[in-house]
């Protein structure tokens, strides 16, 4: 359960134009932590170069309050309901935070849009889209029934993304990732791939890597889904691919063989270059495609 943070100093600036419109600011640590929670509505968070957290909220429900408090280096923004009150409306939050803040955001039925926040991010939603940017700090994002879009800048941050029934669309993310979906598709584009652990139950994967590192480690598993990889033309890696009920298409040359004369199952093991990297792919019902650019 959520720990109640004792309220320390909160500097209130600005004013509310209407009873249900809230506009508040507070001084904040340039590398502090910002914690936001909302039940329904949109939450937009943008990084800026002021050492200040600013929030503007449209409360749709008279009974709601926006709680805005600071304790040490942590600023908390929460949409709060009175005890026993059942939630009906939706509240949109527009928040600015110091650019290097770390961000923890939890929403139920709200879209999360995050721009230019460069600290660590932990984002969790039930439904609604999560859209954010990956820089040099790690991001962990979990969404149950919404999509996840992450646009990176080929930085150093690791991405851990889990989406149950929404897809993952990841562009120019960093070299290390851990991705999980149940029924969503994953589209991943990365400039340089180093470590990837990927699992899907009923989704397809398409991963394109312009380059790979010498210590490449890819571990991908799919139950009912196609797993497609686009690797650079030349790379050093050992491939170990097995499917139970699916084809293996390999642009690098070597063809798969059946694992048993009478039963299903295909396997393909081959080495490219001096084979320093390891690519392990397992699929039950689905095609595995390995192609070079």
């Amino acid at each position, binding site marked *: 359960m959520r720990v109640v943070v004792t309220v320390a100093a909160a500097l209130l600036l600005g004013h509310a134009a209407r009873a249900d419109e809230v506009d508040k600011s507070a001084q904040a640590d340039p590398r502090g932590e910002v914690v936001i929670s909302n039940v329904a509505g949109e939450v937009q968070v943008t990084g800026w170069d002021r050492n200040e957290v600013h929030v503007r909220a449209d409360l749709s429900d008279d009974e709601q309050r926006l709680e805005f408090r600071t304790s040490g280096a942590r600023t908390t923004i929460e949409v709060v309901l009175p005890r026993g009150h059942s939630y009906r409306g939706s509240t949109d939050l527009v928040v600015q935070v110091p650019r290097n803040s770390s961000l923890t955001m939890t929403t139920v039925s709200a879209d999360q849009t995050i721009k230019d926040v460069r600290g660590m991010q932990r984002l969790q939603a039930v439904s609604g889209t999560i859209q954010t940017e990956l820089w040099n700090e790690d991001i962990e994002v979990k969404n149950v029934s919404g999509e996840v879009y992450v646009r990176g800048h080929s930085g150093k941050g690791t991405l851990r993304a889990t989406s149950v029934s929404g897809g993952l669309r990841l562009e120019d993310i960093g070299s290390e990732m851990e991705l999980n979906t149940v*029924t969503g598709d994953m589209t991943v584009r990365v400039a340089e791939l180093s470590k990837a652990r990927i699992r899907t139950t*009923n*989704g*397809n994967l398409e991963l394109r890597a312009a380059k790979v590192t010498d210590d490449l480690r890819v571990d991908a598993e799919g139950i*009912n*889904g*196609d797993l497609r990889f686009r690797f650079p033309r030349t790379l050093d890696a050992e491939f170990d691919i097995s499917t139970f*009920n*699916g*084809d293996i298409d390999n642009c690098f040359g070597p063809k798969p*063989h*059946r694992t*048993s*004369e*009478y*039963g*299903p199952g*295909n396997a393909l093991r081959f080495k490219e270059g001096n084979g320093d990297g390891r690519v392990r792919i397992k699929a039950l*019902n*689905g*095609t595995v495609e390995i192609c070079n650019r």
Partner: protein
Amino acid sequence: MTTGAATHSSALTGERSPLSDTALVAAARKGDMKAFERLYRLHSGKVMGLCLRMTRRRDVAEDCVQQTFIRAWRSLAAFEGRSAFGTWLHRIAVNEVLTHERNHGTRAESDGEAVEDAHAAPLESQREFDAGAVMDVERALATLPPGSRHVVVLQTVYGYSHEEVAEMLGIAVGTCKAQLHRGRRLLRERMGLPEMNDE
């Protein structure tokens, strides 16, 4: 369900436009069982023919057909449309047949009784040959050993290429060609046809 004779032995006959399959598959992927039933009605005849000739037993073939469509429904998410839906179904069907063979062993080479039961559909008799003295092609096919029978069925009846058949059966292309050659030679013998210079 059509039981009329195919007019040529090469390439899959496209009795219906692939576009209609595409629309049905798209609907089925979203859970539309009626669309899937339509796909079943359109494709089950071919799947049955394939399973029957590969297994030679009607009861086993019907099980294979059932399993094929069940598996297809469950794997619809994995069907990308890179091949025709029918082709994808046939791959699943071949897998089912091979799995069944592996678990139950293959029957004796010349199982006349199974052949008799298996084929209720009357075949156009080959007028040039005395049907009493030699086997008709359907029966002769059923007497082939499984390796060459599978290849002959998939290639000459269903029109798949050497490469496709090899992949479906999990054998090398060279083995596939050899099996085809052997199968055709055996068929000629059993049907009383003269030898030819085969491919």
